């Protein structure tokens, strides 16, 4: 039940949609977006490929189950990082750096935690999708 038109459109949408997910992730700390939404967006992109072409695994090159593990590990490590620095678990630190071309950029450990959230959300959704696909 795959239609040519749909699969063409889906394929063309893949790069901008993933880019949009990345955009959502990076603007998240200051504007609507963030790891959770970006994770859902990524999963939705891959789902679109599945609905259009009947294949999803091709578009999920990494094992989705591993994404969950890495995401959780990253989130916990962020917390432990604070412990090692002598702060209570999950205390976040942030600072501002100037990067050529990009200009003023903010770096915070909370972003790493958000990356963990992103990986878990994307991983969970894709795991379920792939489990159903097989």
């Amino acid at each position, binding site marked *: 039940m795959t239609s040519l038109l749909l699969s063409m459109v889906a394929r063309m949408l893949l790069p901008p949609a993933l880019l949009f997910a990345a955009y959502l992730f990076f603007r998240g700390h200051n504007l609507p977006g963030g790891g959770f939404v970006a994770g*859902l967006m990524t999963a939705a992109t891959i789902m679109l490929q599945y609905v259009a072409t009947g294949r999803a695994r091709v578009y999920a090159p990494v094992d989705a189950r591993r994404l969950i593990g890495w995401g959780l590990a990253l989130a916990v490590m962020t917390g432990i990082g604070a412990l090692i620095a002598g702060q209570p678990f999950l205390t976040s630190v*942030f600072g501002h750096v100037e990067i050529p071309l990009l200009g003023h950029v903010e770096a915070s450990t909370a972003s790493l*935690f958000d990356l963990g959230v992103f990986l878990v959300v994307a991983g*969970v959704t894709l795991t379920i999708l792939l489990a159903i*696909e097989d």
Partner: protein
Amino acid sequence: MKLSLLMIPVLPMILAGLLPGAGRLGHRGLPLACGAVASLTLLLALRVAAPAFSGHAVTATIPWAPATGLNLTFLVDGLSLLFLLLILGIGLLIITFARFYLSPDENLPRFYASLMLFMAAMLGIVTAGNLLLLVVFWELTSISSFLLIGFWDRDPAARSGAYQSLIVTGIGGLALLAGVLVLGSAAGTFDITALAARGAEIRALPAMPIALGLILVGAFTKSAQVPFHFWLPSAMAAPTPVSAYLHSATMVKAGIFLLARLWPIFAATELWFYAVTGFGAATMLVGGWGALRHTDLKRLLAYSTISQLGLITMLYGIGTREAAIAATFHILNHASFKAALFMSAGIIDHEAGTRDFAQLGGLRRHLPRMTILVGLAAASMAGIPPLNGFLSKELFYEATLPAHMAESVGAGLGASWPWLLPVVAVLGSTLTMAYCLRLVVGTFFGPDGPYPQHPHEPPAGMRAPVELLATFCVAVGLLPALIAEPLITTAASAVVGAHVHPHLALWHGLNPALVMSAIGLTAGALLYAARRGSARQTLPPRLGRTASELYDVAIHAMMDGARTLTNRYQNGRLRTYVMTILGLLLALAGWHALQGIWPGAGATTPPPARMPMTDVPRGALVITLLTVAGAASVCALYRHRWPSILALGLVGALVAIYFAWLSAPDLVLTQLLVESVTTILVVLVLYYLPRKTRAREPRRRLILDGAFALVIGASASAVIYAILRRPFESISGYHIANSLEGAGGGNVVNVILVDFRGYDTLGEITVLSIAALGVLALVQAGRRAT
């Protein structure tokens, strides 16, 4: 300092994490790596603990969750020092032994990883300065010992032994956690140093008996005290290096360690005296009797360990300083001779191919050196001079004498039945002497047994650890003041919380203790001689039903009960599950609503003023109601599944529009994406279901379901209405004010998620991950079934 203290348990733990992927190191490289890390940790421990020798405890605190009293507090005092030396010193010997004992074909990376994990957990227990932290490491020893006991996982005996030890010590761990929580919340701190400083105040707390009782259950299960002792013999299915490590010097000593740690707090209570002394004495006798009953060499040693642990427990229970010194000294001695004996049992098994007394005997002609080594270690266990076991046994006898009990809370017992404890002590020694003779004579003397393989002396590397320990037994026995006294002084002073001066000497003069020693040894020899003729055939009678059988009965009853209950409510019908969950929710919400409305149900405050509802344009309200009603009708009346799901998706989209209208762009984004993703997933699942729902439901069922749905819907609406109209101080002001300043983020919603309430998010993503694994398992199981 802080970091090096923390590294003591962490170093072996890091190695444990690396080992599973280090199979290339091979059967020589793996023990070498373990030995290197253990030596490094030992050096570190000695450096860190230097002040402990002069009586100063070293502490370091890293906040973990300070609000709950849970800190990574590490404490190294004399008692920790004694255990650090035991864990790492004997650990090094065990690694050497295992290098020669285990065949290169075994799954060695797993073995050494579990062993190092266990070592790390034990180091954690003895350096923990916070009771909650101690419980964490305590549980870690249960888990790692489960892995070690069940190492030969093809063997059903190993599996059941591992389960048994896990369940028994796991139950004990739960009791310990409960006891620690009761103690900590009553005393207001979990810090061991702070607790020890406030002993008198804690002993007067009304919650003290509950806390102490629960903690004792934890200590008794771990240290194999009656009636929880049965897991230790079952755990003998473990490889011998494991038995030699866990069941001589470490795991089973964890409970003893806890008793020593809590000694300054509780030893002056009657409950402590009667419970700890009583169970310790009973364990000593039951263990000694059991050691006479079994024909397996390792089982004999397991029961003798139980008996010796009972002796140490009993000594800590008596509560006098002399008794505590004797107990502390015996910990060291028992670790040395018992580790040597376990390793010897492994060597005998390795060389003769059996460890059953029915097939052993006469080995002195084949293993002359082992005969001497085992003879020395067993003589030390029996308390024969001039070995170290004799010294601590003398102190043990002295501590049971009424004259020495005058200052303990058990003085009353000492006055009314002055003979009771000394008689128990001599009885325990009699049994010890008898089983030690049985061990040595049954293995090495008499005619040759029908060995499955021809025995010869083991490789030097395998025998070296035993030789070292046997030498230690002799050296401490001959020169106690030089070798053991500084360490025991430090450790015992830390136990009792005051400076004590033990005088360890081989010759104490002709005193009652020496007479008791002589009686015990003679009676033991006579007991053995009386039974010798029939030593291989008949065994002494069993003491009623064994605890192990009661355990089996209890486990079976529990499994049957659980199965019956589960089959009742997990019947595989989605309707039952939904109704159970929603019905429970309804009952809970209803109870709270009742409390708010009806004063009789416990309402204390008058109903507060209501918040005004936000104005919604009438047109929007009508559209919403129509959409919801339409979607509900489609779901209820239409038998095709697709339209129902799309209709529900429409309602979700409507919610997103409301969020947009209320200026919550983050929620709109999330709601829309969640709605799309779940709709797609559900549609994909539909592929596996019949296209239409079941044609005909009985009318009664329909009415019942409909009524239930209406009640649930109405209550949910009522609850939401009540919550929305409740006046409350909004915390959003704080978040908005601090978001940019405190967390450097302009998006308050995101800052709340990843920073202010980061802990909640961590919990949520964990739940999400578990749910995904559940879905995965369900889908795969469903596929296998079809």
